[in-house]
């Protein structure tokens, strides 16, 4: 196990370098300039611009910039400075991350509880009316783009029914976070349902379930112990990888509900061409994603005794 973790961590290094380099190149090699963007249409004096460019190291070759950036990040935990506000990116992140974390956690709970419950319901009745109805609902949920769903919920629950606030002002208020969390969770919820359903329906036909019934076990034990343990392994795995997606995938949702989280900050940085902020935030997301994947693989070995890492 230890050797496996070490090997996986080693494999993560090139991926980490590759991903950060890719995002760095995309941000800086593509046309557009954050300093010029700072002055808007008026345009600043050439000297000031040149000076700012020098100050932020934007006049150096791109690979040199990347090298300095990574060196600072790894040695000093310095992710650079947000040009527009002059604040360190770590500060910006410190503000945004807890917000996203709360939103993501709420969405995660929703997709976990509802997704597995719906999936089990459908899987145990595979091929019948309930199953087909749930199938149709999940297909529909996957098909509705996040921003459309957000609008629909806003119109119905905020404007027409007045049940929930349309925007989030206080991200610690669960009431306010509920609607965005539902929107964020929807697509994943549908996937969790499908995955659970398939897994349950497949395992239900397995020989060991037949054995469990032949042993004279009560139905709730057959389902609760023998069926669940096996069927939920792939679902847990999916949920693990989805944590990363929930963190980074909130761009649209956060924008829609005016939430100042990681996704919203990233979207802003893209539009404002805030290279350093963008690279810093994406780097964090990539680390979260890579670690989540590693954890999922290790979790797999815990859940399924047949898997042994060599």
């Amino acid at each position, binding site marked *: 196990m230890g050797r496996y973790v070490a090997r996986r961590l080693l494999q993560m290094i090139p991926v980490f370098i590759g991903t950060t380099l890719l995002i760095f190149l995309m941000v800086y090699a593509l046309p557009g300039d954050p300093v010029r963007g700072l002055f808007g249409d008026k345009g600043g004096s050439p000297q000031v611009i040149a000076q700012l460019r020098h100050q932020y190291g934007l006049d150096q070759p791109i690979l040199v910039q990347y090298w300095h950036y990574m060196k600072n990040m790894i040695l000093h935990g310095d992710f650079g400075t947000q040009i527009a506000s002059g604040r360190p990116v770590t500060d910006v992140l410190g503000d945004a991350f807890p917000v996203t974390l709360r939103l993501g956690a709420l969405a995660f709970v929703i997709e976990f509880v509802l997704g597995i419950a719906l999936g089990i319901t459908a899987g145990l009745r595979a091929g019948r009316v309930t199953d087909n109805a749930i199938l149709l609902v999940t297909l529909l949920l996957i098909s509705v783009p996040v921003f459309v769903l957000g609008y629909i919920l806003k119109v119905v629950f905020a404007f027409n029914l007045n049940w929930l606030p349309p925007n989030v002002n206080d991200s610690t208020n669960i009431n306010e976070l509920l609607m965005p969390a539902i929107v964020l969770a929807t697509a994943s919820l549908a996937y969790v349902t499908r995955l659970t359903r398939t897994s349950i329906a497949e395992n239900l036909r397995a020989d*060991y379930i*037949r*054995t469990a*019934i*032949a*042993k*004279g076990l*009560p139905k709730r034990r057959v389902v609760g112990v*023998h069926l669940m343990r*096996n069927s939920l392994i792939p679902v847990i795995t999916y949920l693990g990888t989805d944590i990363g997606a929930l963190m980074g995938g909130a761009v649209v949702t956060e924008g829609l509900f005016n939430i100042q989280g990681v996704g919203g900050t990233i979207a802003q940085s893209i539009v404002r061409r805030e290279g350093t902020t963008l690279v810093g935030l994406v780097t964090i997301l990539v680390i979260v994603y890579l670690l989540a994947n590693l954890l999922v693989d290790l979790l797999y070995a815990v859940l399924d005794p047949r898997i042994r890492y060599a």
Partner: protein
Amino acid sequence: MTTIEEVVPVPSPRDGGTDGTPLLEVRDLHVEFHTREGVVKAVNGVNYSVNAGETLAVLGESGSGKSVTAQAIMGILDMPPAKIPQGEIRFRGQDMLTMSGEDRRKIRGQRIAMIFQDALSSLNPVLSVGYQLGEMFRVHQGLSKKEAKAKAIELMDRVKIPAAAARVNDYPHQFSGGMRQRIMIAMALALEPDLIIADEPTTALDVTVQAQVMDLLAELQREYNMGLILITHDLGVVADVADKIAVMYAGRIVERAPVHELYKRPAHPYTRGLLDSIPRLDQKGQELYAIKGLPPNLLRVPSGCAFNPRCPKAQDVCRTQVPDLLPVTEQDGTELVGRASACHFWKETIHG
């Protein structure tokens, strides 16, 4: 306060046969599967019985209905698609098909247990064998986790698994095929049932291990005086352990006989074909006999005798009239006890 003990309406075990009622009796059992292609008639009027301490071997190709019958007895058919339109399955005189689901569940595992063919897929891969064995005691006898584990180790010793105490927490995939099948047997034996149904218990095993597992099963059966239904397609396995044989073809029993009689004088061309297709040392160099054709398509069972398209002796009557399973007699008319054949020409087959 008086507590009225729940009277279990099943007589005390190990007395099967004394009062004339067999331990298990299957009467005119029909099973069909409703599939998209049509209705598959998997079992068409099967009758057989087993007494305590007796071994019945049910022989047939895949698709002959032998496993489906066993699953109907266990009550583990998936319904739907399966359906039992008629028949009775009497356990100690009581028809299990009319019992409540809960009563049947209590019989499963406790009074009737089953051993499956492929122990690797039949054991739960993510639970330790100790847990799976102990579960029998925890569910049916309400033992604690600890007591159940002790019982599990005892059972594993009983089926001769070396270092049982050390291996009780291992998972099925960590055992060899033979050891896994022993665990399956241990699980079936756990509550000392009256009847064990073994569905091809040795098919998935190496030939060398097959004999060991069969011997163990036979030994334990004698010891506990259990009834045993042994389902197989392997005539070699049957000869040593079975008392009587029922040969199935296309969902019907085509021949029934005490084991040695069947080998000596088969009364159905299908049985004869099966016996002739066993390789024999004394016929080395000769071409091996094979029954021509394929097993019947159960969606479209041939009219008349289902075996007629493959039968070397088929006449016109075989294509039109379904032969009943009738008693077989000697040439002089004396009845051969326990023998029956469903062939229009059983006389010619057995005597000529």
